[in-house]
């Protein structure tokens, strides 16, 4: 799952090593316009719906945080 998330992120910024990156949102590695495309891409890839309750920086700031969020949504 981790690699799939990284692959999606790399579609927006191929020049960033997201595997180790921290501050994907807070350090503006991807901007808010990228996020608006990144979230639907995640939803399609993992067949989930990311509600507004998850729209917090900490849920998107590292790949690990994104993976945890997806797992939480999948568990319901």
């Amino acid at each position, binding site marked *: 799952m981790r690699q799939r998330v990284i692959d999606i992120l790399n579609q927006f910024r191929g020049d960033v090593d997201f595997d180790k990156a921290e501050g994907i949102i807070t350090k503006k590695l991807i*901007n*808010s*316009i990228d*996020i*608006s*495309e990144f*979230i*639907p891409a995640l*939803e399609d890839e993992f067949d989930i719906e*990311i*509600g*507004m*309750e998850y*729209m*917090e920086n900490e849920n998107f700031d590292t790949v690990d945080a994104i993976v945890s969020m997806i797992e939480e949504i999948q568990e*319901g």
Partner: protein
Amino acid sequence: MSIVSLPFLIFLLVTMTVFYICPVKFRWGVLLAASICFYVIVGKWIFLPVMIAEALIVWGGSFLIDRRYRAQDWIIKNGDGDKSFKNGIKKKYKKKCRRILVLTLTAVIGLLVFLKFARYLDEFLSGLFDMTNGSFIRAEMLIIPLGISYYTFSMAGYLLDVYWRREEHERNFLRFLLFAIYFPHIIQGPISRYNELGVELKKELRYERTRVAHGMQLMIYGFFKKLVIADRLNMVVSSIYDGRVHSGSIFVFAVFFDVVQIYTDFSGYMDIVTGASQIFGVTLEKNFDHPFFSKTVTEFWRRWHITLGGWFRDYVYMPVTLSSKMKKLNKFSKKHFPQAVSRFITVFIPVMITWIFMGLWHGTGMPYLIWGLYYGTLICLSELLAPFFRKTNEKLGFRDDSFFFNLFRMARTGLIFAGGRLLTRPGGLKNTKMVLGQIFTDLRPWKFFDDSIFYYNISSRQLNVVLLAILAVWGVSMLQRKGSVCEMLDRQHLIVRWAIIYAAFFAVLIFGVYGPKFDPASFIYMQY
């Protein structure tokens, strides 16, 4: 009572004395009482019940939403753990909560919209019913309560966060009221979030000498920006934008001075209130981050009025982007259109909706609508054309870390901002057209160097003072990028430190625009 007046300083001193005499656990109560007094003194007494009623409505909505979520959690906890059962319950309760949310938001945002557009409604209805003897809507209903755009947005943000379960319901209404009415932020922001200001106000508010001293230093700097620069320039800019035709060069002065004025006015206000709040141990959210160092217009709006931009991003842009209709549209466009067109749709619609609302938040006339469209279009274009610009810059050899290239980009951003101001500041689109016409067809550049500008409410000495003050603010901004200037001051020798503080203090006293002869200009952002 203006916050750049002696009565405000006396009010602050009295509040500070009572605040620190009181035991720590009652100090938030002192802030609440002081905030209520402040709101009544600064505005009209009638504004207070309107404000409290709005706070009650929002708090009531939050209370009801919280109750439903608690019921939902209890049912899920005591259920059989089946996933479809859980999802069914969540869906059912979400629907109930949404109903409360919509009703509450309709009430508070509806009031804001009504008050903002009441003037137009009144004109329309008066015309329709031929009201020759007066207005259709009673005059008292056309008065906009002080700070309503700011506190409504703060409270609406809190309610949405409770609905999205990003925020806990505040059980104590008086605590919630303090968050909404807290005097340093009620009139002109920052548009605070409950998870920031609400948390700050719940801390143990203890005396800390350094923090109080830094707060006072920040206030002096704010007074310097407002009284020495902004209010002086306001006199010049107002006399140029008087609806009459002047030479293009005089209008160029006005454009430049107006940009400096709005920055020093608004950021000066923020420094004063942030400093005042710091005296009580409460940190306000940052609203400015040296916007004129921005290289793009998108970056500019991340650094200018940060809390407003953040509010629109989180509560308008993201919900629109992630709405099911928008997602369907994106999927459809990805399937049927080339990538560039599909990306255009993804970016364009939410950005334009957000910026039209941003424009209408700033004002209700056509100039503000065009202002919103102006920024929306520029931001869409800069995002969509970013890859093209990157390639062009590479080909031309412009490097991102080049000093001169970045200087050019900052100047370009400043010009774009000045263009936006030109849409709203001269007073109507007709005047905007006239100003632009004069700049491009009747510049008369020699007027930049003769005495022409001194016919517009400013003397040669005053202009020199303002230019030196602007230079000082620029110097401080450069230092602020390296860290806290107050802490840098602390590290200086006692004599140097106090010499700088006294110099700033006396600069305000000697060069500031104040006193019985002058009516300090209202802060520009107060009207919103």
